[in-house]
């Protein structure tokens, strides 16, 4: 599934937070959007989903397989969300409904899009729990979010995002709230599942090192503008922009970097 974002601008009143952003994600591609907090990267994913806060106003164009999403009525958008675009959010604790079981939430997209009956949903929840490697899926689906660890919760988030086999997966800082060791496991899961489903991926993060593990291409955002774009290898080896260089340095300092990044 291809995503084409053209001249996307997001405003809060007079304040421009995303400024004429243009990028595209070809079918099966994996694009990482990287930038510091406040650079507008999270708002970009929300704009694609049509879930911007009320006060934000988006102009420009967001097309999914050629179909314009910006300005689409909420009901039409709801049919696209979860079915054609899956989304994983930052904080796995607050992103899950504390009053619903894991199984309920895993299979919810299937129920919402009429892809499974109540009975089938139960089996699907089990399948998804196993798919994202939740320990003891039989029990896990009956648990509530607070009974899971942070990494397990994010596995639930990923399972729910992929439940209806969307062609595009949006991930907004999905590993930021996790411990470093858990991060690595969840990133591996991402890598494997995206490869298996063949979905296109947009992965938003502030951490180039994380991005390098799952993405092939990078878009660097600063103050709502795209300052640099290219393949991961090229950017790590020869950052052109100051912001990129700083992000590369930060990634090197805090964690591992791929061998080719070290010259």
């Amino acid at each position: 599934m291809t995503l084409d974002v053209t001249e996307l601008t997001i405003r809060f009143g007079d304040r421009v937070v995303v400024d004429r952003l243009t990028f595209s994600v070809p079918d099966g591609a994996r694009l990482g959007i990287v930038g510091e907090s406040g650079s507008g990267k999270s708002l970009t994913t929300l704009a694609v989903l049509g879930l911007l806060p009320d006060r934000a106003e988006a102009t420009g164009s967001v097309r999914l397989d050629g179909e314009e999403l910006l300005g689409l009525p909420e009901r039409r958008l709801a049919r696209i969300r979860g079915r054609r675009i899956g989304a994983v959010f930052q904080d796995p604790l607050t992103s899950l409904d504390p009053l619903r079981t894991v199984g309920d939430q895993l299979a919810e997209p299937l129920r919402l899009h009429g892809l499974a009956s109540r009975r089938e949903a139960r089996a699907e929840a089990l399948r998804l729990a196993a798919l994202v490697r939740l320990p003891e899926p039989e029990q896990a689906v009956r648990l509530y979010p607070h009974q899971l660890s942070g990494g397990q919760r994010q596995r639930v988030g990923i399972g729910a995002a992929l439940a209806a086999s969307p062609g595009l997966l949006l991930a907004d800082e999905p590993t930021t709230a996790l411990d470093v060791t858990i991060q690595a496991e969840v990133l591996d899961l991402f890598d494997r599942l995206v490869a298996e489903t063949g979905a296109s991926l947009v992965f938003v993060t502030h951490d180039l090192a994380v991005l390098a593990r799952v993405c092939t291409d990078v878009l660097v955002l600063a103050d709502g503008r795209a300052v640099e774009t290219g393949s991961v290898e090229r950017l790590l080896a020869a950052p052109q922009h100051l912001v990129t260089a700083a992000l590369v340095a930060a990634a090197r300092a805090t964690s591992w970097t791929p061998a080719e990044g070290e010259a």
Partner: protein
Amino acid sequence: MSATWLRELLRRPAGAFGAAVLVLLVLCALVSLVWTPQDPFATDPFHRWQGPTAAHPFGTDGTGRDILSYVFAGTRTTVLVAVLSAAVAAVVGVVLAALGALGPRRLREPLAVLIDVLIAFPVLLIAIMLSAVLGPSLGVVVIATGIGFGVNIARVSRGEIRRVARTGYVLAARAAGLGPVRTLTDHVLPNTAPVLIVQLSLSAAVAVLAEAGLSFLGYGAPPSTPSWGRLLNDLQDYVTLYPLTVIWPGLAITVTVLAFNLFGDALREATDPRLVRSRSERTR
């Protein structure tokens, strides 16, 4: 706590309205001590139940008293009850909260239970209970609101006091040898002030409503004190006959309580850094 929150407060329509009404109320109360349009207690058997006229813009009651003058004079009772009640509530609330948050460890649990039980005593029930032994008076209203709402203040501010007491600068002050009482007065209370002031505004609103309710039940101000609550009570018996008269004291109470509530709400928004911050940062 400086001029910035005042500007924030007055920038909000609710805050500006609340502040304006409260200033007006205090002015009326002060003026009424030396001047009222007419004698609020003067009866006039020939002009009973007058509708609005030039001489009596709000009309007259069943004894021919000028309702405008009476309502005007009633502001001083309202202001007095509101201010005193808030003061008593503040003392009760702060003492209970400070003891509950910072006092001897043995005391904290029993205090928490006591506060939970006292919450079940609404202001009006406390007032009725006190009236049974002390007789009706404004003092009963003040004490009842002070205790009844003071407990609420204690519950709300206990957590806040505990939070402030654990901050770095308070721990540093204590480590430097500052005693518990000085720590409370010098560091903890100033930093919990925003929460407290909001609660005081709300307790004033509760006091005005309680005075109205108690005067209606016959336990409020003595007849020699002009009171909106009692006027409302005097007039409501004839509401179906002279519906226009009863509007005035009811409106006066409503607008005053509304002003205290709006003032408190606006103050909370203006002084709560979390609210101010979260509004601009939530989406990033």
